[in-house]
């Protein structure tokens, strides 16, 4: 496989929303706003300068089947190559990297959004991702899987519940200075799925993120580059997955590090999945970043602090990481996502400035 870093540039970033609700703004309008600011940041006109568009969404989350029907207009993508990646936004980043590396595109826009406030019953959406004959008949909330996994992980690693509580408190403290954060002030130790508590569970938020990725030649000097991507998943079945570790994140990270030609010790900034507080610790372990300084992990406040953007969560992590690298806080950064219960899919992007 390639030993050379991938060198796909981040030419532009844009976002909209990042609040508990975005009343009076439709998902199309949210997308238009984020896309406009990403294109302005990149200095491109989508009608002529973007070769390919990648949207990351899932039908039932949107309440519309074949949701990709509804994306091109507000992205400037009409009569252009557009595709949906039915996954988290970081899988879209990996797709953009492949499109660029294959030579079929030199500039790609990647979009993902959450209009979670349109969904009355997010838990029922997630439940429909469980096996229809083996799991759903039990009637249990899919988030019970997080309670089961957390207890198992604490047991296997010897970590403590208070370490997890510290993660939640720390991320929310980080979020206090993040203008995109909606959940900086949550202190609710109510148990939900013992040992998982409410304050250790990220709450949903609305928002949209758009990235413009370009070939090395088309990327201005001094930009952030995506040098490694990796994605993987463990067994989809509750029955046969590995309950002791974040196996998919481990594999995704290994691929991303190898492609970037870096080791975990080179990473100075990490925005990782913290859908549940224990997942941040588990993911850091999978990424080989358990020793990274606390102020270098989710300085944005993560999904616990910002609010969880559902399938856009990976792009929210990437956005925060890119901003950190742009500000000069670090030279090598990493963004990681996990698709949440009951999924085992994870993706990693390693970036350099």
């Amino acid at each position, binding site marked *: 496989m390639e030993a050379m870093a991938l060198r796909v540039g981040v030419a532009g970033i844009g976002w909209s929303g990042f609040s508990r609700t975005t*009343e*009076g703004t439709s998902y199309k309008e949210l997308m238009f706003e984020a896309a406009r600011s990403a294109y302005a940041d990149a200095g491109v006109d989508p009608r002529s300068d973007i070769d390919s568009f990648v949207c990351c969404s899932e039908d*039932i989350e949107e*309440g519309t*089947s074949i949701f990709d029907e509804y994306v091109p207009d507000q992205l400037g993508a009409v009569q252009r190559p557009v595709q949906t990646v039915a996954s988290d936004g970081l899988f879209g980043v990996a797709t953009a990297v492949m499109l660029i590396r294959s030579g079929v595109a030199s500039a790609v826009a990647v979009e993902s959004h959450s209009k979670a406030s*349109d969904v009355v*019953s997010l*838990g*029922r959406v997630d*439940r429909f991702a469980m096996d*229809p*004959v*083996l*799991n759903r*008949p*039990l*009637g*249990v*909330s*899919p*988030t*019970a*899987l997080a*309670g*089961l*996994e*957390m*207890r*198992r992980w604490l*047991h296997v690693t010897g970590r403590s519940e208070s370490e997890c509580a510290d993660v939640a408190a720390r991320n929310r403290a980080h979020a206090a200075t993040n203008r995109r954060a909606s959940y900086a002030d949550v202190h609710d130790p109510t*148990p*939900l*799925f*013992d*040992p*998982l508590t409410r304050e250790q569970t990220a709450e949903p938020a609305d928002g949209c993120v758009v990235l413009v990725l370009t070939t090395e030649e088309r990327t201005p000097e001094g930009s952030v580059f995506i040098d490694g991507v990796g994605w993987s998943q463990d*067994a989809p*079945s*509750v*029955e*046969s997955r590995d*309950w002791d570790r974040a196996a998919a994140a481990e594999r995704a990270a290994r691929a991303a590090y190898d492609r970037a030609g870096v080791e975990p010790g080179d990473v100075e900034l990490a925005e990782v999945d913290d859908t549940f507080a224990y997942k941040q610790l588990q993911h850091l372990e999978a990424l080989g970043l358990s020793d990274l300084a606390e102020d270098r992990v989710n300085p944005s406040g993560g999904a616990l602090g910002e609010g969880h953007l559902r399938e856009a969560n990976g792009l929210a992590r990437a956005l925060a990481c890119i901003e950190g690298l742009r500000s000069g806080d670090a030279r090598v950064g990493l963004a990681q996502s996990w698709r949440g219960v009951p999924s085992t899919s994870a993706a990693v992007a390693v970036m350099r400035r």
Partner: protein
Amino acid sequence: MSPTKIPGELSVSFRYTPGVGNTAFFEGLRDRAVFLGSRCEDCGVTSVPARIFCERCLAELEPSLECGPEGELVSWTLVRVDVDDQPLERPVTYGLVRLDGADTVLLHRLLHTGGEPAIGERVRAVFTSPREGSMLDVEGFAPVADGAGP
């Protein structure tokens, strides 16, 4: 002003056939109160419920190996809210059970009456009667120490 939010739903229902592997598994539960699994000799992995293919190497498997009904508790959680995040009147304990002879786990209710479950604890399936061929043919898993069983 018109309503600021438009209520909606996706007006479809589903009928899921359990597939070839799960049909054998459910028939085992219904007719004989046994858990049928399948073993891939190449990968050395035994899966319960039975599968017609090995997910690691795609070999074709026979749904023929009986596992359990006892096993080991891999993890457990006390579920306090429902799928809509509303508090349950009576919390329910769920567990992951690795049946004897299997490398995989089953998600089901735990029927502990006194004391907390413990990871590593021995548990045993409690079957319902009559049985229809469904995950609900198993009522749950009870501690072996309670003497629950057939």
